[in-house]
């Protein structure tokens, strides 16, 4: 080897350079892959920013007009928003740091090279912070712009705020990576699950106690508005806890917008000092634990293995009984379904159940919607008005369908591509790809309908709607569920990606984006048509016209057929000449 003197590039710089090059090529590949896809992404980004900015502007103006309390309410909303976003950022950083440090091939590859664990951690910390925080920046940018506009702030507000936010995101990133490191060192999967569920239950209980419903009588609303509002605002005081980083950020932003630069500067310095202190700890100390934590994750048995009850349970499981299992027994009862299709159904159900991310995300999305619908009973005052009942019922239909569209795009769309990877078994089996596609569609519909029909029934029940209207929504949501699943399955076959194992990457291609966009447009159009074609009047005394009703329903049915049945039909035709 030559002995020429050269200055070696720092490994961190090399890693940043290589990964930046990779990221840039990914962006270029999207543009090259399809102009339509890049245009769609661009359209949605601009559309989101414009719409969010407009909504935030109007929302802030509306709240600010509240007599006597307007500015206070706006301020409190900002504190609350940043407090919740801080918690979300913490979770996001924890999950992404853990995955990025301990379930990542690059980290393992780098550990076998002469790169110190500290350097690997530094790179992964930077990467995780970016991955976990970009959505936060995207979300709040229109809000802060709207806030600036409605409060007529000075020009330097728009320069100072990004700097404050840049300092702020360091803190949840440091905390998230530190917690991820310690979870990896000390907790195995089962212990972590038990701890996470216990903490979630504790947090729910605390939230339940703190936000329990306040009884407010009509008389109090009429005569003691200030006292009532004060009681409500007390519930939001936690967001102004002085040691919360979100409090420093909110205070800094609010003070700056009011021109109180000294006070704003104080909060900026508080943020800066904490970001520097904890940032330097992360950069110089936390990485020292990385190798030990990585090795612990790779070497782990169960945390319970030393306990006799666990060993007895494990031994019982080791004594294999060759039984069919619960899922197979239940599906086996469907005698009308051919045995090979039943086998496929059993496989899909087992894969779904054993993939925590699939049912975890489903549970979170629909659980939140369910919790919101259950709480509709507290809006008894407004729900005496037919207009509000009507509006809320259609909004619930829209929210339910939007949740479903997210899940069908995320989980149903990549199914065929993933099956293509396993073509040696499923594709070569004598059941034919058309039956595989059909069975996936039917299974996805059946599973989705269990949730969407349940939620719409709950919504109608909470809104005290008569049976006839419940049936109306049941029919509508059934048709929408079928369409969304047909669209996801159909486009999944028409735009397959057999190179990827990761469903997330399959979805991020052209077909997945197209599926999400079409699903959202379909939902907006359908809910609008159904609302206008509703046989029940929006206000007392108004009458719905029959031609309008029929026209709207015909358009809804046609749209459903076009976006649900057609892609499915085309996909079934496509699989006949399928060549992976």
């Amino acid at each position, binding site marked *: 080897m030559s002995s020429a003197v050269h200055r070696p590039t720092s490994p961190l710089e090399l890693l940043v350079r290589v990964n930046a090059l990779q990221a840039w090529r990914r962006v270029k590949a999207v543009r090259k892959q399809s102009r339509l896809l890049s245009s769609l992404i661009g359209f949605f980004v601009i559309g989101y920013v414009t719409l969010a900015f407009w909504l935030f502007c109007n929302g802030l103006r509306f709240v600010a007009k509240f007599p006597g309390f307007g500015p206070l309410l706006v301020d409190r909303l900002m504190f609350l928003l940043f407090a919740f976003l801080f918690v979300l950022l913490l979770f996001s950083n924890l999950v992404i740091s853990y995955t990025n440090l301990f379930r990542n091939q690059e980290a393992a590859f780098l550990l076998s090279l002469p790169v110190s664990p500290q350097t690997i951690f530094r790179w992964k910390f930077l990467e995780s912070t970016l991955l976990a925080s970009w959505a936060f920046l995207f979300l709040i940018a229109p809000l802060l712009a709207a806030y600036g506009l409605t409060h007529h702030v000075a020009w330097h507000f728009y320069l100072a705020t990004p700097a404050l936010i840049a300092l702020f995101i360091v803190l949840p990133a440091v905390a998230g990576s530190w917690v991820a490191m310690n979870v990896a060192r000390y907790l195995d999967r089962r212990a972590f699950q038990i701890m996470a569920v216990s903490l979630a239950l504790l947090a729910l209980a605390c939230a339940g106690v703190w936000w329990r419903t306040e009884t407010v009588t009509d008389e109090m609303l009429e005569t003691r508005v200030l006292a009532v509002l004060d009681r409500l605002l007390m519930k939001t005081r936690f967001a102004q806890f002085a040691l919360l980083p979100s409090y420093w950020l909110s205070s800094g932003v609010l003070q700056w917008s009011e021109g109180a630069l000294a006070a704003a500067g104080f909060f900026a310095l508080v943020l800066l000092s904490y970001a520097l202190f904890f940032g330097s700890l992360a950069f110089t100390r936390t990485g020292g634990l990385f190798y030990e934590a990585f090795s612990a994750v790779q*070497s782990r048995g169960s945390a319970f293995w030393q306990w006799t009850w666990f060993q007895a349970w494990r031994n019982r499981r080791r004594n294999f009984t060759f039984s069919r299992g619960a899922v197979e027994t239940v599906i086996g009862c469907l005698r009308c379904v051919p045995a090979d299709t039943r086998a496929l159904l059993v496989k899909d159900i087992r894969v779904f159940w054993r993939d925590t991310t699939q049912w975890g995300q489903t549970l979170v999305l629909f659980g939140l919607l369910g919790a919101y619908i259950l709480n509709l009973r507290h809006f008894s005052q407004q729900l005496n008005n037919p207009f509000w009942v009507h509006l809320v019922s259609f909004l619930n239909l829209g929210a339910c369908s939007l949740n479903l569209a997210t899940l069908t795009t995320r989980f149903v769309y990549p199914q065929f591509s993933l099956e293509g990877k396993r073509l040696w078994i499923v594709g070569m089996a004598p059941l034919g790809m058309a039956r595989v596609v059909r069975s996936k569609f039917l299974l996805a519909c059946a599973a989705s309908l269990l949730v969407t029909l349940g939620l719409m029934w709950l919504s109608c029940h909470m809104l005290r709607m008569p049976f006839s209207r419940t049936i109306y929504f049941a029919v509508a949501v059934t048709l929408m569920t079928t369409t969304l699943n047909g669209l996801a399955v159909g486009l999944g076959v028409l735009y397959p990606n057999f190179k990827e194992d990761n469903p997330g990457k399959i979805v991020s291609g052209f077909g997945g984006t197209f599926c999400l966009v079409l699903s959202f447009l379909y939902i907006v159009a359908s809910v609008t048509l159904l609302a206008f074609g509703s046989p029940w009047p929006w206000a007392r005394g108004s009458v719905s016209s029959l031609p309008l009703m029929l026209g709207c329903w015909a358009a809804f049915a046609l749209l459903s057929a076009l976006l649900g049945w057609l892609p499915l039909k085309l996909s079934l035709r496509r699989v006949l000449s399928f060549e992976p």
Partner: protein
Amino acid sequence: MIELVHLVKRYGDLLAVNDITLTIPRGEFFAVLGPNAAGKTTTIRILAGLIKPTSGSARVAGFDVQTSPLEARRRLAYVPDFPFLYDKLTPWEFFRFTGQLFRMSEADIQSSARELIARFSLEPFLGKPIEGLSHGTRQRVAIVSALLHAPEVLVLDEPMVGLDPHHSRVLKDILKERSGRGMTVFVSTHQLSVAEEMADRIGIIHQGRLLAVGTREELRRRSGVEGALENTFLALTEEEANFAAEKIGAK
């Protein structure tokens, strides 16, 4: 050059590596054989510094992989069974990246890479993104990047998988040449022909234990079975399995 001293690795209640002691001198080609889940990959991962041993130590070129990890890794190259490559980089960019991580000068990267690229016929792929390369070509890229800094110790896990006969031959020739020049090679493989043809010594691991170490002839004598290495391997591992079954029965 490679020293494993009373190496033990536990995954909870599972004993994956059971008190392995082994010394492989400089320039030796050592092949390790064993059935599935015998503990070969775990041993390699400890050697590469990816996981900590429960007890015992592993040394590469005189450096303990736990206490002097960077010194050990500077002298080591490791090619896993499914190597990680940056998909959006080209092979040439990837070689430059790994060379720079090993602090090689520009001239060294150029000269070392050119020779290996020619021998592994990678010229047509140098400017193409790695994501578009076939499994075998990716394997060649990984091997070239491992050999680039002329490591003193090369650890390979199933290196022949995906390689066509021509490039398998090229790899075998390069490994033979380099071990002749002092590079220690530690290969884990299921292809007994590779061990038979290439290895100076062979180790057989079964259920975490190093059952036997020796030259082809020494192992044959120990097993008491004539014929191909396959017969020796099966005899030794069956003997161990019967012994383990007897122990369980006695308990």
